[in-house]
């Protein structure tokens, strides 16, 4: 019985791959090559390198058994998957930010929110009773309030340096985010032992990382 593992491309993926290698299960992955699928025939594992935002889709539909994905993507997609392990990598926050010093929240106004995460923003402001209008953007979110496209933005904030460089500040932190090991629900039933073994290996390395950072 083989296991397919979906790993995001980019910085989070590199960290995850380092961790898999340290755990002794990722040596078949060659990040420098342009290949997207790597087979470890000895251990019966298959790794797929995918775009961060596609990991959930692959796991939810059972093309990958498990995957590593940011909690931000999981919340946004409210996917029907298992969130088996919360990692110490990919730590950041999803926050509301806007132009420094500008008062935004007034009574009974609809505020314009520019974001890559419309569902998460809707859920958050709904729980606060604030009416909003979503402006869906795919990048350079920080520009939206500066150019007058929106009142605030909802975005991932790691260090806050990008915000600062653009004259913005965090108004409110919404949710803490980390990377998570997720699994397809049906795969988990059939391959529970294998999945748990892999997670145990990842957990050991991840805890080491957690202690050192």
């Amino acid at each position: 019985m083989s296991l397919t593992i979906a790993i995001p491309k980019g910085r989070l993926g590199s960290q995850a791959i380092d961790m898999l290698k340290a755990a002794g299960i990722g040596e078949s992955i060659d990040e420098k090559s342009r290949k997207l699928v790597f087979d470890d025939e000895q251990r019966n594992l298959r790794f797929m390198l995918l775009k961060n935002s596609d990991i959930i889709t692959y796991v939810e539909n059972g093309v990958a058994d498990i995957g590593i994905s940011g909690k931000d993507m999981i919340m946004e997609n409210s996917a029907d998957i298992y969130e088996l392990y919360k990692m110490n990598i990919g730590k950041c926050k999803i926050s509301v930010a806007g132009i420094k010093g500008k008062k935004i929240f007034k009574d009974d106004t609809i505020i314009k929110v520019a974001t890559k995460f419309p569902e998460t923003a809707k859920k958050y402001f709904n729980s606060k009773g604030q009416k909003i209008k979503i402006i869906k953007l795919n990048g350079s979110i920080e520009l939206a309030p500066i150019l007058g496209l929106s009142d605030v933005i909802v975005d991932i904030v790691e260090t806050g340096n990008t915000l600062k460089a653009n004259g913005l500040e965090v108004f409110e932190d919404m949710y803490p985010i980390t990377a998570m090991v997720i699994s397809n629900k049906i795969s988990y039933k059939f391959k529970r032992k294998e999945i748990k073994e892999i997670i145990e290996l990842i957990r050991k390395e991840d805890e080491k990382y957690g202690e050192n950072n």
Partner: protein
Amino acid sequence: MNFLNIEDEMKFFQKMYVLRKDIENFLFDEGYMNIEPSIFEGYDDFIGVNSRIDKKSTVKLLDNNSEILILTPDITTGIVNKFMPRWEMGSLLKVFYYGKTYKHNGIGIKENREMGVEIIGERNPNTDENILNTAARIIAKYSSNYLFEIGNSKFLKGIMQSCSFKKEDYENILDILYLKNRQELKEYLSKLPYREPMSTLVNIFDLEGTFEEISEELKGLYMNDLMKQGLEELKKIDNYMKNITDKITYDLSMVSELSYYDGTIFRGYIEGSNKAIIKGGRYDSFTEQYGYKIPAMGFTVELDELIKVLYKEEQR
């Protein structure tokens, strides 16, 4: 490229017909009687008993008194609502049906073909085993690579009741259980006032696997009467099912979208399919809303999912 031609479509319909007949004949021979379920329900009646269902996904209609109806998302609810108001003590219903359920899936209305079985009013200590046996025999007809997952809602109920959570916390905890998010569960519970059953609840994701594995994990953990009762029922099922099939796994953290289950709950999967093929369980407390608690149990077979599996096997 041809997408869907009439010939292929007709082939599909014939295949579906054969599959349906096949299961219908099997159930008829097993002594079940056929009924035809209604396709709509009162909205309030339905939501009243199924509070965990996604309300947005229901397909609403208006009748000429401006009462809101929905196209049924769950046939069992309809059957209970149909028979319970005029139930006579001592009656026994052993029925099967073919029907469709309806849901908004974001793109449009999704019709779902189902075959179902219900036994209402049977006071027999072995009904759970018999129903599971029937379900296992149906799935085994179509694949040897199947797996049954069995749980008992009394175990979780035993924990939740004696923790007396607020409604909001209760719902949030169920959501976390649904995701099997171990760390979040621990974190969430640590913010609530401590109650003894929580010590078992934080370990609930370890209570899965074979019955022996679960018993081992349970050693030393807090248990109250309702939890013990759930476990006893599971043990009895395990003793029986052992002799029938080894394709079984148990999970005490099982949560169902339909909140009326009360006791045994189970799902049947086939490898390579991404949805449960069989879903079912005991729902005695559902009938209680009509004044008396009647033993009731049933399951559905997801025909649309099952036929996909059969097509896949054929193309191999």
